[in-house]
């Protein structure tokens, strides 16, 4: 029984154990350094900005449409991520902001002909304000109750918009399409969305790495601890709600004009808000690249299933199965799970 002790005793137990512990420490703190490739998102953005040049060689409207559509969802998902990912409040009601942004800009566009691209920032401000109001009420609840209250919010908004005759009620309003020729008609919206998406990614990076972001992440883990650490949880949360609402609202503003049609069930259907949530979760909630990757993948899957399986319930079934599989094998989302296992390629580390 005494063997070990006598052995170590010979070599001065105290200092050797201390040395071993120190070496161990050094090794552990060594894997802490992180590297990321900033050039990649920038190059990616640049590529997107010159992509429309394709139009000189033929009709690539569909490609542009897909990129634009994806950029729209990147904006929304990144916005959602600020509340859902950083702060941990899963909202299924963010399409309310989509609708408010869309109607605000859409109606002004319809009546006064001011482009929604110019109106988008104002729509964002309006949504931030509304988000601030709504957030002060709903953020009192937490967890599943919050999720469901956000769902209720959509329902209420839906019923109200459906009955508001000034904006066409349930039937909606048709907006004029622009006068550009077919090849170029999409360009204004394309650039607006790509820039908006880039802005939202940049902004969420900034937020995540700020005091606000740190506070939000603390809130998502343990609100009581955060509060007693001196974080004004209520203000932080409401702020996060407002900011994330603003992004979704800006996307909505332009989306209406692009579709040339606004009506409640373009914006206020579960599919829209669920898409935002799914994209974030699939890509990795709380990460910067997550919403982007999620948006690209989900839209790609959608296209793939519709194109290959054609039209059938199979399409829904396959989407469901795919989601389950991804969730089971990437429980933290693709970016999150890879990062956890130190397998995240550097180009996807935007955090």
């Amino acid at each position, binding site marked *: 029984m005494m063997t070990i002790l006598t052995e170590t005793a010979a070599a001065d137990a105290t200092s050797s154990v201390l040395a071993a512990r120190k070496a161990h420490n050094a090794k552990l703190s060594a894997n802490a350094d992180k590297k990321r490739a900033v050039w990649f998102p920038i190059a990616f953005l640049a590529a997107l900005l010159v992509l429309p040049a394709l139009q000189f060689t033929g009709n690539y409207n569909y490609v542009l449409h897909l990129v634009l559509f994806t950029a729209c969802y990147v904006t929304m998902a990144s916005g959602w991520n600020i509340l859902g990912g950083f702060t941990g409040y899963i909202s299924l009601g963010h399409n309310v902001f989509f609708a408010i942004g869309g109607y605000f800009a859409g109606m002004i566009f319809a009546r006064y002909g001011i482009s929604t691209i110019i109106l988008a920032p104002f729509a964002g401000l309006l949504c931030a304000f509304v988000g601030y109001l709504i957030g002060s009420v709903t953020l009192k*609840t937490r967890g599943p109750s919050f999720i469901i*209250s956000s769902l209720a919010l959509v*329902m209420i908004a839906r019923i109200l918009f459906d009955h508001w005759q000034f904006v066409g009620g349930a039937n909606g309003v048709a907006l004029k399409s622009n006068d550009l020729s077919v090849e170029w008609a999409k360009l204004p919206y394309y650039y607006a969305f790509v820039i908006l998406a880039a802005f939202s990614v940049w902004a969420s990076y900034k937020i995540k790495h700020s005091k606000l972001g740190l506070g939000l992440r603390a809130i998502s883990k343990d609100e009581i601890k955060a509060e007693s650490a001196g974080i004004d949880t209520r203000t932080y949360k409401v702020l996060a709600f407002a900011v994330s609402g603003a992004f979704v609202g800006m996307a909505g503003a332009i989306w209406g004009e692009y579709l040339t049609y606004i009506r409640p069930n373009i914006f206020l259907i579960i599919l829209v808000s669920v898409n935002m949530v799914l994209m974030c*979760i699939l890509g990795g909630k709380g990460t910067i690249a997550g919403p982007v990757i999620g948006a690209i993948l989900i839209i790609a899957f959608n296209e793939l299933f519709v194109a290959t399986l054609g039209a059938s319930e199979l399409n829904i*079934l396959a989407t*469901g199965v795919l989601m*389950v599989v991804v*969730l089971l094998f990437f429980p*933290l989302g693709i970016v999150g799970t890879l990062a956890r296992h130190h397998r995240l390629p550097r180009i996807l580390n935007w955090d």
Partner: protein
Amino acid sequence: MEQIVQTLILGIALGGVFALMGSGLSLVFGVMRIVNLAHPSLIIAGAYVTYWGFKLWGIDPLVMLPIAAIILAAIGVILYKLVFEKEAKSAKYSEMTVLLTFATAMIVEGALGGMFTNTQRVTSPDYATDAIFFGNVFIPTGQLYAGLASLVIIGALALFLKHSRFGNAIRATTQNRDAAELLGVNVNFVGIMSFAIGIGLAGAAGSLVSFVFSFFPAKHWEWIAVLMSLVVLGGMGSILGTVLASFMLSIVAAFVGAYFGSTWSSMTFFLALFLILLVRPQGLFGEKPELA
């Protein structure tokens, strides 16, 4: 006066059905922390089972109820094994399940659509469109039977959970999985069984729904928000709360529908949810959140 009584009866009648639809959801959340967005789609699966039993062999929906419950419970076991078992230990379980169940709902919808097409169905036993009249006031028999059946089922379930050894094990596992395991509970088995019970309830509810509402595979989207608001209003996980919330809201909705117009009646559910959350964020029977 007569119309007030009538509206009240109709509200209660609808509440009984919602109570069973919501309580399975509430149970699965209460004991398993699974926010089961697939619940309504499984209710529809139960309704299909009942529908075909009635259509092919003329079996009364109320007789089909236990059969549908068992079949759905079996589906629940398979679902749990395939989808939820792996994640059950994870700390993010509750949040993950929101998405997993959402995906499950899509799978169920897709599968049902593939098998039964999107045509809407309804089982029509005679009592489904009958009513007992007292002078000018009537009680719709379909909803009456459905309500009674659901109260019996819910009552039996509540007693079982509160007093049986297995019920205790279920609650223990929910509250502290590790501790339950250390005390000799086979937590995985408990997980499977309680999920099966929850889904079985969806099957039972489906049987009742099959003659009260008409249904098709995609119909579940319409129910999810309503059922969820019942569950939140009652206090997440409290079955009693869900039942009371179902009756209260259905009655209020009936009055709103009768006196302010039908368009506003479905808004009642959501508005009430909102108002209640304002004054009592934990719902009627939920536990107070920690931070005062």
